């Protein structure tokens, strides 16, 4: 700290830090010399708790990390376990997973857009975004029973099949969303205030972004074509046609454009997945991993034994470790899992995109005004539950 600079704390209680994030900034007048994000205020010990739960029970914890994208978190966890155990997931389950995680992407982007715009001063958008988000949350409730903490995916497939009328509900979203996204764009894209607040703010070059380990729209906003759905397709993403929207300048405005376009692409994927949705089982028929359907359990002795065995003892993946990563709405979310051959994981570690992305805050904010910091934090799109886990 020099003589002329001043230290200022933003957060942990600040409405624009999207949770309990504390940022220590060093200021020269109004210009940021150094910005240091300090995390840990929301530490919940999720990873540690997972070690004392069976694999199925531990799934419920993953919802609570990035609570705006619960299905993506579920997916990365179950896929890591599936990779370790080499389970074949039925096609229907994979397609439904794609539909639901893409809905999650839209959901997460809507919250991002609403809060980001409110931070910069466009309050109206917040209400519009949450109106559409409510429709998506209703679909979560429709399929899983809860709006946010869905816990709907299971190792080997899904908890239960989607209810009758699922396609109708999804079509409803597909029908209204494109118009709504155009509306958001009407409000913001050409708006002079919006442009003044975002164009050129929080710039990062593609090379820098790769060096900092950024992922997701933050990386693609800088023009780097990296999307795990394309680069390393999982869960049938190679069956669908979609584009990866890229930015040019790597500023807040480009990231905004990227995310808006991503929502459109997600709708495109959902449409294709819904059209091609195959019939069949929704969970693997390997009775050592998933219990039989309830109706069989209530009739047969053998099925009942399987049912008891699975719920009491769970399953024991072979010894070893595995890493699996998927493209969550915020970037690459990875799950590193160590198994010692028992029914409980020996160690679970997540690579949360928000955590890595926020670590580049200094690079984004250096040399900008203090008021730009709010726009920059918004454009990084963080969820503190995921950063601190």
């Amino acid at each position, binding site marked *: 700290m020099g003589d002329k600079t001043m230290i200022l704390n933003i957060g942990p209680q600040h409405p624009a830090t999207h949770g309990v994030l504390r940022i220590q900034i060093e200021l020269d007048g109004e210009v940021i010399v150094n910005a240091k994000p300090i995390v840990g205020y929301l530490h919940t010990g999720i990873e540690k708790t997972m070690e004392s739960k069976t694999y199925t029970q531990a799934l419920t914890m993953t919802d609570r990390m990035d609570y705006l994208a619960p299905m993506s978190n579920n997916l990365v966890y179950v896929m890591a376990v599936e990779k370790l155990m080499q389970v074949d997931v039925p096609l229907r389950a994979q397609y439904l997973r794609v539909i639901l995680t893409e809905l999650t992407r839209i959901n997460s982007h809507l919250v991002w857009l609403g809060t980001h715009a409110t931070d910069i001063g466009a309050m109206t958008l917040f209400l519009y975004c949450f109106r559409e988000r409510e429709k998506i949350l209703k679909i979560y409730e429709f399929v*899983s029973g809860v709006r946010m903490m869905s816990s709907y995916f299971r190792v080997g497939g899904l908890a239960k099949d989607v209810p009758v009328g699922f396609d109708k509900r999804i079509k409803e979203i597909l029908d209204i969303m494109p118009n709504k996204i155009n509306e958001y764009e009407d409000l913001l894209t050409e708006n002079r205030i919006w442009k003044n607040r975002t164009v050129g703010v929080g710039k990062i070059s593609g090379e820098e972004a790769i060096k900092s380990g950024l992922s997701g729209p933050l990386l693609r906003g800088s023009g780097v074509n990296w999307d795990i759905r394309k680069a390393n397709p999982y869960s049938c993403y190679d069956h669908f046609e979609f584009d990866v929207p890229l930015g040019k300048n790597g500023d807040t405005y480009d990231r905004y454009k990227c995310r808006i376009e991503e929502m459109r692409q997600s709708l495109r994927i959902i449409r294709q997945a819904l059209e091609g949705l195959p019939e069949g089982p929704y969970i693997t028929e390997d009775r050592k991993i998933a219990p039989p359907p309830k109706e069989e359990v209530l009739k047969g002795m053998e099925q009942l034994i399987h049912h008891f065995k699975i719920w009491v003892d769970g399953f024991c993946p072979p010894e070893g470790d595995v890493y699996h990563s998927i493209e969550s709405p915020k970037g690459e979310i990875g799950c590193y899992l160590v198994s010692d051959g028992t029914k409980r994981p020996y160690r679970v570690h997540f690579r949360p995109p928000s955590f890595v992305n926020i670590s580049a805050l200094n690079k984004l904010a250096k040399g900008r005004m203090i008021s730009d910091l709010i726009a920059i934090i918004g454009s990084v799109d963080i969820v503190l539950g995921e950063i601190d886990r």
Partner: protein
Amino acid sequence: MWEMIKSIFFAIPRGLSVTFKYFLKKKVTVKYPDAPPVFEDRYRGLHYLTRYPDGKERCVCCGLCAVACPADAIYMEPAETEKGERYAKVFEINELRCIFCGYCEEACPEEAIFLGHEFEFSSGDRGDFIYTKEMLLANFDKIEKDRVAKNIKPFIRQEKYQFKKPADPIH
């Protein structure tokens, strides 16, 4: 200059037109608590323990829901009737620990425990959230009474009955 003209005469009216469009439209806000919220069938709310039509409770105290529970919210103690039938002497759910994951309902081999649609249960005392067997059975009785009075289909989810023949008793 051109940018400025564009923003004043084009971009701003375009944005405002969206606002005005919704100004006259029907409101989408849910009027809770004046109007009751609408839930989907699978909604996971307060638990209830079901009964057979003759009033006997279905739970056999097998403990599967308790081991399945990730939050360790369920406690039970078994007992036997003179006829040798097992039942739960004590059955408690701590609704403050519960995370409403629905695993207990999935695990129960007797269809004895379900998560209903009740969500307004609050109290100033933490002790009130330990729901005993009697309270959980009373939840079911209330639901059944409501259902019979209004002559509607069972409050619990339809999928639970798919495998039952129409002649089979519903609880």
